[in-house]
């Protein structure tokens, strides 16, 4: 048992830091990602031929954590490398892998997932988007929702109904859509904090036969993996850590007696973050290749989200006067954004109800995390 990163993980985290520092802290984040890609740091768990280093998933986790700490676009990275890239790596054809993976690992191609719809958020079988075969491929039509960083993306993983089967899960297929392409329009939807969501309309978008990912009509079986690849919670974890650092800075400006009053809350937040971090690493450590235990993932994602929410709520309650004060300090700005952003964490990347169901389904309960 070890509560610190191993030597390989520490070295990778240090490498990420060195690349970041070498470009200067004001560098364009996308340029930083390109440089990290050149050093094969963005997808170290991919095979070497696809731009990785052939390392275990646990090594990649250390990179993800460091990207978040440096406030690099970790969510875009997570969706591109994990949700889309790993799905291609696992289920794609050799041609799809050769075409997309080196660009994703190289930081040259970002990708989005177009799975949710306004009536099908956590219920991904409820989609109404359709794909109709034509002479040279497929025509996709529908409206997708809650997509992030789509304006950066040159690729989207999109679900569509290709037939009405015997049950709701039958007849769903997955497609790879190059962006931008005729028929695709993006509509930003402002969030309380951070970059916007995008509503994406698909109006008879044409894709070739080679755009199909996995078996025709059988995309449903791929979805748990596609979503699962991004469900370790490291993006939440790094936010929790950053928010707590800001809160601690504010706490230390208070008189000693007030600091003492807040000590219990501070340690409670730290405890949640450290345990969530251990659970997140446990989930990636126990993976067989890219195949993670879904119950361990549920613990990790839920614990990371809850830890971040605990920090945001605690800081929002205890430092409310400082958060409202003008001029705003950098720490107050961080915490105000935290208060806005934290409620999303039990919704995005898998609704907490599904994670709780998974955890409760285990018998004996708790075995996945001991």
């Amino acid at each position, binding site marked *: *048992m*070890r*509560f*610190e*990163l*191993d030597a390989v*993980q520490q070295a990778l985290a240090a490498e990420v830091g060195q690349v970041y520092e070498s470009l200067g802290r004001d560098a364009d984040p996308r340029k930083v990602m390109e440089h990290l890609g050149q050093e094969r740091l963005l997808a170290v768990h991919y095979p070497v031929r696809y731009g990785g280093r052939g390392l275990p998933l*646990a090594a990649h986790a250390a990179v993800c954590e460091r990207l978040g700490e440096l406030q690099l676009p970790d969510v875009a990275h997570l969706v591109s490398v994990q949700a889309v890239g790993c799905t291609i790596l696992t289920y794609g054809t050799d041609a799809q892998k050769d075409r997309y993976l080196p660009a994703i690992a190289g930081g040259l191609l970002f990708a989005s997932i177009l799975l949710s719809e306004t009536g099908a958020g956590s219920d991904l079988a409820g989609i109404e988007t359709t794909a109709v075969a034509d002479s040279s491929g497929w025509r996709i039509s529908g409206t997708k929702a809650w997509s992030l960083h789509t304006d950066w993306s040159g690729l989207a993983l999109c679900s569509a109904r290709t037939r009405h089967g015997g049950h709701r899960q039958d007849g769903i297929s997955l497609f790879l859509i190059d962006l931008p392409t005729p028929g695709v329009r993006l509509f930003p939807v402002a969030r309380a904090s951070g970059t916007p969501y995008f509503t994406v309309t698909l109006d008879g978008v044409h894709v070739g036969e080679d755009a199909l990912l996995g078996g025709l009509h059988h995309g449903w079986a791929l979805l748990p993996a596609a979503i699962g690849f991004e469900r370790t919670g490291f993006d939440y974890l790094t936010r929790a850590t950053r928010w707590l650092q800001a809160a601690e800075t504010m706490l230390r400006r208070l008189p000693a007696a007030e*600091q*003492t009053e*807040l*000590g*219990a*809350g*501070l*340690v*409670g937040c*730290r*405890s*949640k973050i*450290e*345990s*969530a*971090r*251990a*659970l997140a*690493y*446990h989930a990636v*450590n*126990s993976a067989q290749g890219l195949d993670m235990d879904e119950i361990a993932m549920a*613990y990790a994602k*839920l*614990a990371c989200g*809850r830890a971040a929410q605990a920090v945001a709520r605690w800081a929002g309650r205890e430092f409310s006067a400082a958060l409202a004060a003008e001029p705003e300090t950098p720490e107050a700005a961080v915490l105000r954004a935290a208060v806005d952003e934290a409620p999303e964490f039990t919704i995005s990347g898998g609704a907490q*109800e599904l*994670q*709780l*169901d*998974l*955890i*409760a*389904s285990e*018998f*004996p*309960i*708790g075995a996945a*995390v*001991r």
Partner: protein
Amino acid sequence: MNLDLDHSRRRLAQAALAAAAAQPETASGWVVFDAIGVTGLLTEPGGSPPFGLLDWCLVLESLGVGRRELDLIREVRLFLDVFDDGRGRARAAFAAWARNARAGTQARVLAVRRTAEDGSERWSTRGGPPELGGLPDVALDPAAATAVRDRDLVACASYAVGIGRGCLESARERAGSRVIAKRRLIEYQGAAHQLAESAVELAGARLAVWRSATLADEGRVPGYRATEAAAAAVTACLECAHTATQIFGAAGTSDPRLVSLHRTAYRLTAVCGSPRALWREAGQRALAEERSDETQRDEDG
């Protein structure tokens, strides 16, 4: 970072559960521990103790799952922690005590501590079991005394995790078998999610305990983390106890085993402290330790 237990520790945890299953329900924690077969390792003369705090925590969690009586096994661990200097005398005395204990010795207290105003402690076996009576007193300076108290707190916290786990496993079993309106209780989100929330809380508490124990075994000072571990463990234990009683409904307040688990969870607040007091103390210790570190850094340059 890796939570996997090595092979020997996994076997130890399994052996503790197996020993508990093989002993009558009334058998104490010490009897179950002795039945695992590791007492001999603790009494071997020479060398360092083969049992680290993390090993103790694994066993104590298993004892908690079966709600075995904690007092005597806690005394044993404390005695070895304070008196075992690796030179063999305390181990030989303990071996004699263990032999007689198997034959029915009823001693409940192995050593007595006296705490001075400055926090230093003097431990004595006089007045305890005759096998231990010849050992010299042990004096601990305030820092050493705090370290002993912290290790004891972490050990008790692991027992609390075990009580919580016992509650949760019983509740999960009940929810999987009880049928209400043609559906198993676990199929109702109200029940399933309460179980899952408690499971997440308990997993976090176990990690806090293991983190503190690992620090202690590495020769580092757990400091406030020991109190934090106890706070997390008692908080989770109480939540799991409430969940179990809720899942069992009226049966939970009439089933002697459930009633015992519930009461044991609350008794732990007397052993470890209330969650409120523990979190408060952990916070105070954390801030004090950080101020002390800052002062040290300033002095260093």
